[in-house]
């Protein structure tokens, strides 16, 4: 049984991410958002489900495809939209853009553009917690591409060796940009890589938000107990290209269409309706609500100020008083 109130929370969060990402795609074509834009469409269940296992005290490190995690973490959509516009009221003061969302107050440590680059930082955050005897979890999101980087192996090894409270969350969407998993991993069964480091692992269906939440709670519990790190592989799929610049020559449209039949929002909606705890009116109401929230976010971004060019070199160093 799924609690209706909780189900609505999960559904709304997924719908918010979906609408936010669609709007971001549109704004990119209008030139409001520049640089690179990596959309989370199709993967919503992963961020939303996983975030349920984390408390406000826990830390999150994510990748450049982090809009879903940021929204699920509660960072206001307006602050994120403004950041993508490059405005001073963005979460990173407009200095980062789409790939570098930061929110220290919510322990959201980026937004990393180097594949694998966040894992060592996550290990360090967990080390600090262990040394200060704080029972917190550091959740580290990364993609299947990252498992090829040396930092992935070094980080799993170090976390396991020192028994650090890191929850490694691999969002396996089957493609490292344009390279399919089977073409870059001798051992494509990602969760098995944890075996090499004596680390427990699990895999879950990343298109099923309930399954993700369940698996994440179990994994986080293990970590929170002080039993060391855990690798949780979430099998998911991105419905859009790697970024806006990608004509997707590396995968067949039929494959995308097939995965779209497992759209996490569609699946969850259908399931809840079948259970009788969700009506069409609920769906319409939720959609209107998230549409409004995203429109408002665009308003916040449009109205936001540009940072003064004179402030260019601030925050390179911490100013000495």
């Amino acid at each position, binding site marked *: 049984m799924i609690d209706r109130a909780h189900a609505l929370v999960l559904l709304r969060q997924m719908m918010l991410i979906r609408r936010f990402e669609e709007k971001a795609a549109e704004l990119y074509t209008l030139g409001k958002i520049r640089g690179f834009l990596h959309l989370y469409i199709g993967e919503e269940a992963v961020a939303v489900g996983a975030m349920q296992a984390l408390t406000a005290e826990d830390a999150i490190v994510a990748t450049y495809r982090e809009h879903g995690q940021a929204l699920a973490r509660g960072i206001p959509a307006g602050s994120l939209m403004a950041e993508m516009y490059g405005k001073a009221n963005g979460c990173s003061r407009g200095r980062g853009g789409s790939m570098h969302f*930061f929110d220290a107050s919510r322990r959201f*440590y980026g937004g990393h553009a180097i594949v694998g*680059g966040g894992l060592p930082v996550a290990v360090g955050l967990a080390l600090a917690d262990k040394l200060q005897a704080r029972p917190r979890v550091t959740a580290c999101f990364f993609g299947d591409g990252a498992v090829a980087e040396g930092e992935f192996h070094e*980080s799993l090894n170090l976390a396991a060796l020192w028994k650090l409270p890191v929850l490694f969350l691999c969002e396996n969407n089957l493609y490292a940009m344009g390279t399919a998993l089977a073409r870059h991993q001798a051992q494509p069964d990602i969760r098995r890589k944890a075996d090499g480091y004596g680390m427990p692992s699990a895999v879950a269906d990343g298109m099923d938000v309930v399954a993700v939440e369940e698996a994440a709670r179990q994994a986080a519990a293990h970590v929170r107990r002080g039993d060391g790190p855990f690798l949780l592989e979430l099998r998911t799929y991105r419905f859009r290209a790697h970024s806006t610049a990608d004509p997707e020559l590396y995968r067949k449209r039929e494959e995308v269409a097939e995965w779209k039949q497992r759209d996490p929002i569609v699946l969850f909606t259908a399931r809840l309706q079948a259970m009788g705890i969700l009506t069409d009116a609920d769906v319409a109401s939720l959609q209107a609500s998230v549409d409004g929230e995203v429109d408002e976010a665009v308003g916040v971004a449009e109205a936001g100020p540009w940072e003064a060019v004179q402030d260019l070199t601030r925050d390179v160093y911490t100013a000495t008083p």
Partner: protein
Amino acid sequence: MTKMTYRDAIRSALREALRTDPRVFLMGEDVGGYGGAFKVSYGLLEEFGPERVRDTPLSENTFLGAGIGAALGGMRPIVEIMTVNFSLLALDQIVNNAATLRHMSGGQLSVPLVVRMTTGGGRQLAAQHSHSLEGWFAHIPGIKIVVPAVAADARGFVLAALRDPDPVFIFEHATLYPLEGEVDEQAGPAAIGRALVRRSGDAVSLITYGGTLGTTLRAADELAREGVEAEVIDLRTLRPLDTETILASVARTHRAVIVDEGWRTGSFAAEVSARIMEGGFYSLDAPVARVCSAEVPMPYAKHMEDAALPQVSAIATAVREMLVAHG
């Protein structure tokens, strides 16, 4: 005041830090059980235990990144990368995270990380173990680079780095560890960003740092015997660079020779030369000269390595030629 070696001075600072601040811990290859590759951390594992003196696997990129994460998490890690040669494996975390996190987050985060590395050649360790790349690191905004040349600064900069809210990289020239110097163990942190005149003179400004200070002072002695009094400046910090002290010296001497163990092309000496040109153009009686390493991967044979590195004779010759051509 005590006379102690450069190595012992660093250890003294590390010990003081570990004792007085529970947030401080050491992390690096062989810093614990081995006593440190250069014996700097000798005895510290026994004194402070394995939680605070942590031997790491050979994973430079990750344990440096872990240092960043730990600093974000409220600790004061001192990460040791055995030598600058291995730091190349950690460049991603250094350049893309340590230097940028404050800026990329719009000022929300600061990374109070200390990194110590051994640098330099002269021990016949050949091409992969003899680099002097501190000049490269000084190129990156967001981090600070200190280069202690004497025992007192080796100690003082560890203390200063621990107080700095931004990442500080300390480069210790391998040949300096046994060098003795006067150290005041009660003294506080050294001033990051201030160069010092180690020897006064009026004929030429010899500007250097780190491992080549000794060579430069010996060149100054040789020139003094010919009646040429050279002023020797120890830069002590590469980033931020103390341009003021450099220009004040050149305003007095009107000639400058920069001594830098990096390779000549794109060397840190080129940066110092540019600053002198920009700020001291009208003080100069001669073009700024540079004495750097030859453009060759470090050879193994002693006579070849000696020929590749900046030597007393090269510095003295550069000064003499300058005086003859532009006296």
